């Protein structure tokens, strides 16, 4: 499997209290990779490390086959970025910003940039300083797309946008990906936002990668199982990951598990535990339980 982004043993101390620890990310080429995590978990810091904006204390970053920092310009030539905050020159007009940006990219598609300006309902002569939040987000995406990148890195691109703008942005992004087969690495703290279009997911918490797996696996393997007659400690090694155990009324208990397969009920029977009910956990609940279990283990 070829990778668009790969980190090995990445470490970066952002402050005394917070550090990215031993981060091993593998973003497959062509994947729509959702980078999930609560606010302040290190998503933006990780993205800055991936883009060479920060220099890691240890570890390596490989972006589109180029080792950083030596191959940074080559890697950035194929990477479209929408940062967490817009950093454009505010005195430029939309057209000036397109012209300036396009001058640095050999594959810049000026014709498409003009078309997309119209589709996004941006006025070419409007100053960037006067753009609304939604218009700025559209312009940032437009700049990233029209450089025809192989990889798009988007840091919370939908944050604070209204549903109409969100749909515009998402449609343009998915159109591009379906036509060009580009890799997308998109961060968010909102699970349902990524659920709809990502096929891979990486979950980050407190500077560490909690899990990295295909979205389908993440979505289907999370279950809430109601059992009775369970002993105080789970017997042996269960064939799934036990995220949480909650005591219910009477002898019943609720187990939250990841990596569940229907044939695993046999393990319960062999352990003398009766399975009463197996329910799908929605993605957000799965995400919350995953973080809760990770934090309990870390503590």
């Amino acid at each position, binding site marked *: 499997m070829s990778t668009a982004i790969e980190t090995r043993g990445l470490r970066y101390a952002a402050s005394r209290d917070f550090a990215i620890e031993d981060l091993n990310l593998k973003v497959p080429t062509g994947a729509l990779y959702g980078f999930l995590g609560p606010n302040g978990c290190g998503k933006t810091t990780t993205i800055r490390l991936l883009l060479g*904006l920060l220099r890691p204390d240890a570890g390596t970053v490989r972006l589109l086959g180029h080792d950083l920092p030596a191959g940074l*310009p080559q890697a*950035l030539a194929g990477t479209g*970025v929408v940062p967490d905050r817009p950093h*454009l*020159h505010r*005195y430029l007009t939309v057209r000036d910003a397109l012209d300036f940006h396009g*001058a640095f*990219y050999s594959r810049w598609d000026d014709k498409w940039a003009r078309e997309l300006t119209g589709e996004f309902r941006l006025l070419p002569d409007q100053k960037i300083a006067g753009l609304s939040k939604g218009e700025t987000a559209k312009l940032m995406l437009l700049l990233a797309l029209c450089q025809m990148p192989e990889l798009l890195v988007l840091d919370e691109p939908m944050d604070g946008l209204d549903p109409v703008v969100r749909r515009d942005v998402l449609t343009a992004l998915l159109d591009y990906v379906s036509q060009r087969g580009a890799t997308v690495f998109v961060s968010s703290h909102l699970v349902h936002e990524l659920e709809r279009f990502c096929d891979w997911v990486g979950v980050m918490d407190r500077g560490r990668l909690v899990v990295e797996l295909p979205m389908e696996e993440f979505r289907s393997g999370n279950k809430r199982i109601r059992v009775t007659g369970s002993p105080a400690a789970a017997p042996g090694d269960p064939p799934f990951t036990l995220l949480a155990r909650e005591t219910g009324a009477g002898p019943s208990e609720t187990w939250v598990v990841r990596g569940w397969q229907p044939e695993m009920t046999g393990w319960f029977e062999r352990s003398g535990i009766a399975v009463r009910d197996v329910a799908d956990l929605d993605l957000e609940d799965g995400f919350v339980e995953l973080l809760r279990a990770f934090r309990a283990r870390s503590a």
Partner: protein
Amino acid sequence: MLKAMIRLQWKGCWHLVVALAVAALALPIVSVRTGWRSSGEQLPRFLIELQLWGLFYPALAALVAVTLAAAIWASDRRGHHIYALLLPIPRWRYVLLRYLAGLVLLLPLVLALWLGAVIATSSLDMPPGLRQFPHALAVKFGLALLLLFGLAFAVAAASRRALGIGMKLVGLFIAVHIAVILLSPRTNLIWTVMTALSTWPGPLAPLGGRWMLIDV
């Protein structure tokens, strides 16, 4: 890329460039007119007046260099340089592009001063024994701008760490100067260094000497 950078900087600084160009155009004209009038048309007094006005040329060059260098980097600084750092070119190349585009913006200012100097000297019936130096003055102004802009640009482009090191070196130099004065009161280290820097072949030499548009 350079064309795009020049366009970017022009968009960001054109108000400043136009205002400074007006000042550069006006300075020689005002100096000659005012100097001639206030000297009572007496040549020795006129030359003294022009010599005093001459102090404004390096001052204008310094003003241009500092304000333009600051304006050039202001937008990048406001965005924590993130936009620039995400462009697919090495960092040194981005700085070089910024610098070269800055030099292009200096050209209209030198031209404005040259034009002002030509207008000022051609509008005056030159008294016998005096010579005019509009071209030499413009060249000197250009060299001074080049030098000061280079310095101001380096400071404006420097990281906090580099600026910190620079400040520490200046502090160390002042400490050494004080120590030398205490040991040998007749030795003035600052004066010695400034003289060495500002006289030929020192790097600040274009700022020294006489800034005379009209002289004997």
